[in-house]
């Protein structure tokens, strides 16, 4: 049984198709990131999985429980950090956490112990007794994540958890999420590509409501680009060498002593050796690994979304 399973999950808002027949399978203990441009349908998908929105078509289930037919069974299993931070503004941290924890069935003591742990992790202990309406945006965000975690849910939905956080807080939260890997099933959305790259077991990229790419970060990088690239800084390139290279490799770019070679497969050693053998000075050379951001832009295009 998968932790999250959807079948042709679709949500239409009047004429707008926000989610268009998504099939997702997230395994137990997996950290799955849903990436996509603004308006791609990430939040809408999560809202359907959390029983907040009724799918127009298709089905979804969490650990085998259908989200439409058995919403309360689903709600017992999940923890949600919504994209917009929402807290009970006149309660303090303890009270906010206790509310969510107890509604999920924790006892007072369990809720307290769990809150303490999370407040320490999130660095909120000092301000824990202040009403949260006086908090900064980032502090609210951290409390909001803690609220998703307080009930120790089996399946976590984190919709842009690190949005608006400073680098320290982002790192702390990334590390905390990494620590949950294998123990919890996590569905994460983020616009920070490095974060998705380092955290995710698998990534689904969605655009205009459809899954357009799916795989491990590594698979996405290798499968997206047909060609490998290598950048070499050189001196004294001759026309002969250049035409030779042009014959051997698919594409060649040159600018101010920088040579960029594109080909399906590239052998670093072979290229460096060849250049040496032709008397070309090689100052530096590197095989270029595409980043997840390159993959993202390649797949979803450069156009801004409305």
């Amino acid at each position, binding site marked *: 049984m998968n932790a999250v399973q959807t079948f042709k999950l679709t949500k239409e808002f009047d004429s707008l198709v926000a989610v268009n027949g998504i099939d997702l399978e997230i395994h137990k203990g997996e950290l799955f990131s849903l990436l996509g441009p603004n308006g791609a349908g990430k939040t809408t998908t999560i809202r359907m999985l*959390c*029983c*907040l*929105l*009724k799918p127009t078509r298709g089905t979804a289930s969490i650990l085998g429980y259908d989200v439409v037919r058995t*919403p*309360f069974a689903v*709600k*017992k299993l*999940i923890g*949600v950090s*919504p994209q*917009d931070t*929402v*807290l*009970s*503004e*006149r*309660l303090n941290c303890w*009270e906010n956490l*206790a*509310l*969510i924890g*107890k*509604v*999920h*069935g924790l006892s007072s003591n369990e809720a307290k112990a769990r809150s303490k742990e999370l407040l320490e992790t999130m660095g909120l202990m000092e301000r824990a007794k202040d*009403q949260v309406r006086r908090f900064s945006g980032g502090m609210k965000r951290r409390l909001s994540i803690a*609220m998703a975690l307080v*009930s120790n849910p089996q399946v976590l939905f984190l919709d842009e958890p690190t949005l608006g956080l400073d680098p320290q807080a982002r790192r702390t939260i990334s590390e905390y999420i990494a620590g949950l890997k294998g123990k919890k099933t996590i569905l994460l959305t983020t616009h920070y590509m490095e974060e998705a790259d380092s955290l995710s077991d698998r990534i689904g990229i969605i655009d205009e409501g459809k899954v357009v790419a799916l795989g491990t970060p590594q698979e996405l990088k290798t499968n997206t680009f047909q060609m490998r690239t290598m950048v070499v800084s050189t001196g004294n390139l001759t026309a002969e060498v250049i035409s030779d290279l042009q014959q051997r490799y698919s594409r060649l770019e040159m600018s101010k002593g920088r040579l960029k070679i594109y080909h399906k497969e590239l052998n670093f050693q072979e290229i460096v050796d060849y250049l040496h053998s032709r008397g070309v000075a090689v100052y530096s050379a590197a095989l270029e690994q595409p980043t997840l951001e390159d993959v993202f832009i390649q797949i979803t295009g450069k156009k801004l979304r409305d």
Partner: protein
Amino acid sequence: MNFWEIGKRNLKEIYRNPVLLGFLLGMPIAFMLVFIAAAGGAQASPIALSIVDEDRSQNSSAFIQYLGHVDAIELNQPIYSEESQAQVDLQDGRISLYLLIPSGFQAAQHGNQTITLELIYKAADPMTGLQLKPVIEAVGSQFLGVPPPLNVELKGTESEIKNPAVNFYFPGIAVYGLMILISTAAGIIAGDRERGFLIRMFTTPAKPWDFILGYSLPFIPVLIVSTLIYLGVGMALGLTVVGNLGHAFLIFFLIGLCSVGIGMIVGSLVKSESQTGISWIFIVPMAMISGAWFTVDRMPSAIRSIAGALPFIHAIDASRAVLNGSPFSAIVLDIYWLVGWTVVLFATGIMLFRKTMVS
């Protein structure tokens, strides 16, 4: 016990919000101040009443004497024995209204038949008659409840209603004040929905009734305190509680719960806090046809039956009756009606809420 957790949260949100708390508790006080102005202060002068005694029996003169002991009434002398003379005096403005005791008064009383007393006033000046009517009703029912000849014990009740105007207006004002909770309760739910807090709570296992009860719970202390303020300030201003104060409290508490229940329904239906203004479309006409501000006796029967189906008029009538001395048995049907409405309103609220949990 999820509703308890949600209720605790809402209670904290309310009592940590000085503006809202001030509104909830200040409103009863403000209302009573308006009420003083409306009732013209605690020391209203007695109303001059003329009497036409067509029965001219022992009982009718005993009744007249009895009326003469009521502080709120100042009997004009002499007592008319023919209505025609009273009509002329009323027409000419020598008197402002008169009470007609029909012939057959004594016979009807002995035969335990319905007795109709008429209070005739100038159409241009209805207020005095309206103020006097409940007094005559209360005094009349007390008088008629006792077999003739009158004994001395009755004189103990003579000064009970110190200020009939206050006793008449108070229940309507208090019930209208409690009706305003409709919009307050709806506003609290709608605000939490608009700010997303409720949506977040919808991802937890809390059930629809946890929310409805959780959002009503904080209103219980509010209701208790505001009912006490209404009664306390009312009594300080000359409200006479002849009947059981606990019964009056119960009625106000129940109508307050009904209002909160309606607020829950409105709060389930609207999308934003500003939309809760819709509740006023309901509150004002309902208060009007339920007799919160003036008597409904003269309204068309269709409107009266609408009002009679709703809970508010029952709360106003029953509390007025209790304040004027009616026993519990006289208001028990009104109480059933209020309890029934409370149950129906909350059940409806839960049903509607269930639907809005998934959009």
